[in-house]
């Protein structure tokens, strides 16, 4: 058996780096180790480095990096010239932490996008598919005079929660005489009238669509984190991915769909839910249809001016978190 001996750097950082390369990846890197004299351990802070590139067609590309410091800590024990790992965070923990950090950083941009036109969200396919109980409840409340809670609870997994949301928003009200029954409130009737007045075609589904949009916009994080409904979040994350880079660059940059797809995978931390006839391109087309993004003459994606003006005040914060390299 052939044996090749390789002399290695002996430091806690190098030891942790090798462990990271084996188990996590080189985007997580060790910081400078500090020796804890009380516990007789090396504490190695870990930081995450997420690079991003913006490549406008007519100008040189720019690269910048999101640097999240002290995301976790590895504890290394030293025994002579040997190191032993005492504690090492697993990949899931690091992933969750990074997702939280990124969400906190982009929360303000996300809020602007969600509240820009709260009724538009109900027009998107994934919202219509995955928030189906809301449509059932609203259409039934408008066509039937009264709606039984027992019936509603059979319509979907989170129907009870959706009814509570609609009650809190004042769109439904409980019948005083029959507590197990709800009916459309005056506000829902007013919304019905408004949609009837502006819509060419009278349809209760359009009212339900506006209501679902309001629920999605106001309860976005609850739907995502508590109900674990992730597919409709692709619309928010794709829009956010664009504006994050546009704010970083300080202008509405044209971006190809392919480039936006790559950004989305970083911001959304996943691939979008796609089927044979429903790809990421369809998601972008729907977002463009909802006027959250626009297209230029070359069919590139470009931001809406009114949204861009609202998110620009957060530029300092984003530039600080992701300096240019």
């Amino acid at each position, binding site marked *: *058996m052939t044996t*090749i001996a390789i002399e290695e*750097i002996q430091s806690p950082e190098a030891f942790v780096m*090798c462990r990271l*390369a084996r188990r996590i990846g080189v985007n997580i890197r060790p910081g400078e180790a500090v020796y804890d004299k009380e516990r007789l351990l090396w504490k190695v802070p870990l930081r995450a480095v997420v*690079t991003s590139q913006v490549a406008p067609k007519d100008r040189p590309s720019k690269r910048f990096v999101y640097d999240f410091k002290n995301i976790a800590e590895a504890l290394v024990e*030293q025994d*002579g*010239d040997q190191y032993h790992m005492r504690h090492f965070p697993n990949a899931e923990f690091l992933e969750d932490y990074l997702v939280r950090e990124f969400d906190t950083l982009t929360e303000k941009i996300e809020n602007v996008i969600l509240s820009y036109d709260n009724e538009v969200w109900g027009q998107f396919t994934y919202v219509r598919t995955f928030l189906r109980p809301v449509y059932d409840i609203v259409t039934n409340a408008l066509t039937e005079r009264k709606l039984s809670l027992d019936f509603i609870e059979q319509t979907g997994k989170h129907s009870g929660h959706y009814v509570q949301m609609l009650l809190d928003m004042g769109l439904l009200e409980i019948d005083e005489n029959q507590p197990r029954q709800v009916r459309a409130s005056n506000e829902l009737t007013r919304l019905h009238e408004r949609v009837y007045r502006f819509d060419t075609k009278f349809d209760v589904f359009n009212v339900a669509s506006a209501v679902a949009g309001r629920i999605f916009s106001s309860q976005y994080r609850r739907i995502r984190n508590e109900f674990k409904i992730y597919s409709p979040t692709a619309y928010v994350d794709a829009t956010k991915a664009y504006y994050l880079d546009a704010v970083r660059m300080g202008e509405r940059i044209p971006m190809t769909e392919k480039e936006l797809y790559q950004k989305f995978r970083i911001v959304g931390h996943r691939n979008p839910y796609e089927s044979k006839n429903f790809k990421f391109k369809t998601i972008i087309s729907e977002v463009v249809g909802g006027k959250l993004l626009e297209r230029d003459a070359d069919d590139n994606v470009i931001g809406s001016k009114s949204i861009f003006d609202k998110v620009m005040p957060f530029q300092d914060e984003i530039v600080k978190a992701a300096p240019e390299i």
Partner: protein
Amino acid sequence: MKLGTETLDGAQSKVHAAFQIAIDAVAAKSLDTLDGLLRNHPPIPAILIFDRTFMLTGDTEGSHAVLLHSYDRKHERVDVIDPSLPLRGRPSAYVKAEFEGGWRLLQNLTIIVHPVDIDIKSQTTSIAAVKSESLLDYIEANER
């Protein structure tokens, strides 16, 4: 018949073992220490992970992987196969001092892909328990 089956199984397992590979991550002390890999017949590919942005511009936080082809000690030159360069599959030369700067930032991280019957043994040296200098200083001091 039974014996034949056993022989066949044994032969299959031997063939299978010959194609088994292991992947090791090591923090090589310097390029000199990777000589053993290059001198082996056939040579074992060492994938060096380094900060290319630092090497080219002096800014940190990039990462890139290249395959170590050879190391010219006399001319202080590292020949690597860099998939991002136009000469794909052919070695390109980097200046050792510049390359090592970027490599050190990732703790000289080296990925070694080798057949399981070649053992990559880590030869360690001792280090003071309490650090009084930075890691880069330490490496520089130990390389002299």
